[in-house]
Structure formats: C-alpha cells, structure tokens
C-alpha cells in the first residue's frame, strides 16, 4: 500500500474521530468550546513518520506526488464550491432587507466546516486515484 494512500486514510480517520469527538462534546460544553476537538487535527503533524525509509524500498515517487497534487486541486475546488454555495446560500436564506444578523459563532464554524470539506475531498480524491491506477494486474 502506498504511503500517501495510507496518509489519505490516516487523515480521513483523524477527521472522522475529531468530528465525532466534537459532536459528543457539544451537549456537555456547547458548540463553541467543543471546537477545541478540532485541535486533534494537529496530530496530522506526525505524518512524516509515514515517510520514514524502510530499507531499500522506495516509499514515495513521482506518481505519488502527482496524485497528491491532483488531490490538492480537487480538495480546493470542492472546498471553494461548497464555501461559495454555503455563504451565498446562507445570505439568500437569511437576507431580510439588509437588517438581518448572523451570530458571531458562525465564523469559527465556517473555518472548521471548510477544513472538513477540504480534507474529506482531498482524501477521497487520493483514494479514488490509487484505486483506479492500482487496479492493474500484479506479478
């Protein structure tokens, strides 16, 4: 299994765990304090451990980099689309002659939501690309 494929799964799982912890904490400490759970995503800083050299075996090559690059573009595109639609949708739904207000609590949720959308789309794009390319025959 390619290391970047592992990385995608790792990010996906980390995001899923973080979101679950967030959802579990909300009833007890409220949505704002529960956002601290997203600090768990800092564990993503441990990902270089996935790239450590294993004997003569190459762990990352030009194909992995190309796939990661495409996934980054896909993640960004999906994020931007969701962000734009979400913001303009919210504006259209809440607009009341320019006198409506949005809670300040919405702002950190936009950041966390954007991160979730970006990382999920990126992970899915990486997994799909590896699945498509690795579906060839072996030895």
């Amino acid at each position, binding site marked *: 299994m*390619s290391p970047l494929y592992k990385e995608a799964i790792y990010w996906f799982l980390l995001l899923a765990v973080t979101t679950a912890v967030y959802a579990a904490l909300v009833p007890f400490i409220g949505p704002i304090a529960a956002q601290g759970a997203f600090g768990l995503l800092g564990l993503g800083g441990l990902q270089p451990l996935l790239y450590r050299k294993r004997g*003569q*075996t*190459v*762990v*990352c*090559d*030009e*194909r*992995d980099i190309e796939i990661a690059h495409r996934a980054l573009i896909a993640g960004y595109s999906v994020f931007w689309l969701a962000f734009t639609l979400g913001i303009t949708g919210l504006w259209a739904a809440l607009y009341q002659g320019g006198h409506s207000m949005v809670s300040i609590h919405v702002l950190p949720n936009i950041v966390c939501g954007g991160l979730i959308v970006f990382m999920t789309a990126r992970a899915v794009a990486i997994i799909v690309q*590896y699945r*498509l*390319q*690795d*579906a*060839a*025959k*072996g*030895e």
Partner: protein
Amino acid sequence: MPTITNQIRRLRFERWEMTQQKLAELIGVTRQTIIAMEGGKYTPSLALAFRLSRAFDVGVEDVFRWHEDSQ
C-alpha cells in the same frame, strides 16, 4: 488522442523474469508505480522513462511506443 503503450512486462520477463519489486528498486519507484505502468494506467515522466530503458539496457523507444490516433 495519441496513446503511449509500453513493453515493461515483456522486457521484465525477458530479463531473467525480474520481479516488479526488483525493477522498482532498480529505478527508484514503488512497486505500485510499476503495476500502474504495466497496466497502462500511468505514463511516467521522461526521466523515469530513461531510467527504465537503462535498467533494461535498451532504448526508450524499445520500451515505449507512441501511437497516433487511428480514428
């Protein structure tokens, strides 16, 4: 659209039935990349194409073929 095919699998077997892992180590890529190239799912960079041809001790065009669109 032009397509590029390759003879990696055939050349590998002609060269002492070299394994995908051995070839991957020789040219500095992962085994998954060899699998993807043999399956026609991935077209390598020019540098990797040269490394492959050197590994088989043949020319680049003996490994890769360029096919103009027949349609």
